[in-house]
């Protein structure tokens, strides 16, 4: 059933990482990503790996959940690696016809793969340990200084919340419509692409009509519950920075410094 799709991939828990303020986690994830792109030595990746392992251990998330994030990008990683491997000029290590592998190409490919892997690890840990609500709250608060220059931070967060709330409902509805149309003899599986696309029309039209009706109902219900935008709004859960966030920033900055320092200790010829 379509309904079983879980949204995001939040893995509930009460670990140190889970309890961090979402703002800290979002900003640290950004720092983490920036650091990934600054690394120029394998030693740096080694330190980054140690840091990542520490975070995963602290978060008490089963490693396979973190690794699961790699699955959808494996194809992409493989292709990128192959291009880097075969199309980089430099000292030739191996040659066959027009195909060649260079020392630089090999290094480049390995770096690329590592970068992509760590990119996925970083973002996965963020979304695994932060509920969608906390994420939107965090984003709203981080963007709120920009309200002064007209960035609709509250509206943006509200939109995300409502979208997250309605995705399962609309998926369920799609499921129902597909079944209803199938029962009337609609065929979604055979024919060429154009026919299949045409077959989608009787699904999309009822879905859109219903989505608009829901939006109208929801707007009325929100008005009835005194909604009037973000101004003077309070929250059930206030975001509060605690000692944990301090500790987290300290550790993140130390590791970032170590990793960047590692760039200067590149041992030539070390692969």
């Amino acid at each position, binding site marked *: 059933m379509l309904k079983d799709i879980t949204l995001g991939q939040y893995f509930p828990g009460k670990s140190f990482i889970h309890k961090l303020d979402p703002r800290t986690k979002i900003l640290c994830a950004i720092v983490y990503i920036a650091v990934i792109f600054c690394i120029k030595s394998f030693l740096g990746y080694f330190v980054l790996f140690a840091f990542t392992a520490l975070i995963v251990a602290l978060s008490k998330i089963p490693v396979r959940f973190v690794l699961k994030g790699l699955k959808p990008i494996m194809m992409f990683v493989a292709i990128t690696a192959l291009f880097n491997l075969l199309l980089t000029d430099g000292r030739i290590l191996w040659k066959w016809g027009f195909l060649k592998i260079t020392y630089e190409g090999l290094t480049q490919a390995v770096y690329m793969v590592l970068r992509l892997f760590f990119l996925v690890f970083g973002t996965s840990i963020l979304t695994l340990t932060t509920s969608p609500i906390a994420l939107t709250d965090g984003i709203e608060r981080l963007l709120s200084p920009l309200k002064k220059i007209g960035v609709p931070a509250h509206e943006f967060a509200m939109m995300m*919340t409502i979208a*997250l*709330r309605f995705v399962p409902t609309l998926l369920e509805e799609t499921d129902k419509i597909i079944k209803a149309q199938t029962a009337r003899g609609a065929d979604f599986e055979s024919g060429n692409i154009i026919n299949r696309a045409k077959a989608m029309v009787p699904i999309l039209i009822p879905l859109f009509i219903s989505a608009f009706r829901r939006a109208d*109902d929801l707007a009325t*219900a929100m008005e009835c519950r*005194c909604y*009037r935008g973000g101004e003077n*709004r*309070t929250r*059930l859960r206030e975001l509060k920075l605690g000692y944990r966030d301090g500790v987290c920033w300290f550790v993140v900055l130390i590791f970032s410094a170590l990793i960047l320092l590692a760039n200067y200790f590149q041992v030539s010829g070390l692969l």
Partner: protein
Amino acid sequence: MDTNEKLIEIKNVEFLYESTEEPGGSRVLKDVSLDIKKGEFLAVLGHNGSGKSTLAKHLNAILVPEKGSVLVAGFLTSDESLLYEIRQRVGMVFQNPDNQLVATIVEEDVAFAPENLGVNPQEIRERVDYALDAVNMSEYKEHAPHMLSGGQKQRIAIAGVLAMKPDVLVMDEPTAMLDPEGRREILETVKKLNRDEGMTVVMITHFMEEAAQADRVVVIDHGKIIMHGLPKEVFSRVEEIKEIGLDVPQATELAYLLKKEGFDFETDILTADECVNKILSVYQSERGADND
């Protein structure tokens, strides 16, 4: 219902949707006057398109009357500066629970209204706990709404407006999309709120058995209030009710049919129990008459 204090006063309200305005087009509400008393459980009946939802939307200033006035706890709904005073006093629950829930976690959803009102976090917490407890859904506070049953979702929607601490709960066919189990849950919840918390309840419904449990019933037809009174009084006018396309509770229907057959029955019977007792007593007295 011991106090006779009026909570809502609807006076000679006329209303027409602008989008349908056509010369000579008939109004959706015609000269509607109705007082809603503190603590009462009022049921509103009427067939499709009779104007029930339109009337409900007048109670919390979603719509304002074209002519006439609506006073909620002394506040005039046409005064825009009082909008939020009025809306937080009138909790409104609609038909489709899916389209009323805003957040992805139950307690976050219940907190939505107090958050909008700028209530401080500790008090929001208290209100959320109180509201979830009042609808008996405390154990689900960290669940995602889309994993709950229809009746449970609708109870969350009720909790969501209870968190505003309203004076009156206005419900527009809250059970129409639910299965019998969900319907029973909602009716129980509403009756409990009315009985234990003294909550004033206005419930629009198509289910006569639900209306029969109210303190008072109002029947609307073509935008006019055509009957009001105790459920017994209203439903005993079986023929008039059928004329406007509505039903009466099954027990009343049976009593009505038996009466038509010449038995000694009155149509002021609402519940199956009353009906059974009446049939027994009629049966015994007839048998007694035969034995003589």
